[in-house]
């Protein structure tokens, strides 16, 4: 398991290094961040993230309801 962790961490480090290099080179060669955001908003990424956020909000609301009903549930037991 320790060896597997080492291998994964090396891969992760290399990927992060590549990503940071790509972002750095993009900035240096005149990337327009607003254009990047606008393009990604129209892509399936944005809809996926928005869907996740809606799921999260729904799940959080259910959890809040559950926590609110727990005292009543225990009160009914005794």
């Amino acid at each position, binding site marked *: 398991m320790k060896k597997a962790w080492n291998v994964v961490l090396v891969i*992760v480090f290399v990927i992060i290094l590549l*990503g940071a290099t790509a*972002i750095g080179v*993009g900035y240096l*060669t*005149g*990337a*327009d961040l607003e254009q990047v955001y606008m393009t990604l908003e*129209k892509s399936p990424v944005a809809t996926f993230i928005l869907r996740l956020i809606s799921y999260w909000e729904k799940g959080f609301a259910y959890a809040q309801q559950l926590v609110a009903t727990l005292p009543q549930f225990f009160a009914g037991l005794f």
Partner: protein
Amino acid sequence: MWEVSTINKQKFLAELAKLLTFMYEDDRQKALGAYNEMFDEAEDEQMLLQALVSPLRQAVEVARAYNAGKQSLSTAAKPREDEEANDAFMDTIHRIRAEALKKQPAVQVVNENQISLFDAPEETGPAEAPAQPEAAAEVPAEEAAAPAESEDGAEAPAEEADAPEEAETENGPEAEEDAQADEEDEDAPLPESKPAPALQTAELDRSQPAQKTVRKARVPLLILYILLAIPLGLIGLAILLIPALVSLAAAIVCITVAVLAVTSALGSFPKIANLLVALGAALILLAVGLVFLMLFVWFLAGAIGGMINGLITLGGKWCYKEVPAE
């Protein structure tokens, strides 16, 4: 008193069998058989165990009587072929038996520190000293009875030579003087720096293949352990599954977003600089996703698997005992 209750005939014989591996297999079986008979004859097993003090002490006594010069440690577990039989050690065992059986009624109260049959010698307390001078004083006489030993004493393995010395140093100044006199008579240079546990550990390692033991379940304890371990294991499993599933969800989200970002960026950015920034962000997200995935695997295989393995190992330790094979 706790230590006394944990020791029994089988443990004593198993430990002694390990310590006597320097003998030929025939002789070893003969010696072990004699000790077995001794236990059968004893009215009170615990009293006999107290009289015998420890397997190490008995092994030392037998080793002194045994013709150590002819048999090297490599003879362990081999049948005798060309060597002549030497039953001097049997006389010693008979003498020990007679004395131990004679001593039994006299032993009434056992000090907590006196009996430490399976602990290392350094763990035995100072209260052991009063009981031992008798045994130590008998050793020179025994050696005088076996003159062949003095000739072969110089060739004896270091471990064998060290063990008696260690036993004697515990027995007070008189026993030490006797031991020194014996050493001078024998002209056997005994290195003083090596402690007796070397005999125990070295011979235990060497005797592993020769030792035949059988695992025997303590059924009531096993049932009790299973009844406790299953609910506790399920609770631990539930506790560990929550972070594992959260890690898996995070990994799926990160990797999906990264892949979607890469696929959408490749076709929709006319400018390479913008494409590079989007790809860089996607790669970093992918790396984070990999870390979460590895965390999930670790929780599943490392933590949960380790917990289950630990429970099984603990059950094996507590609920099973090793007894010498009949």
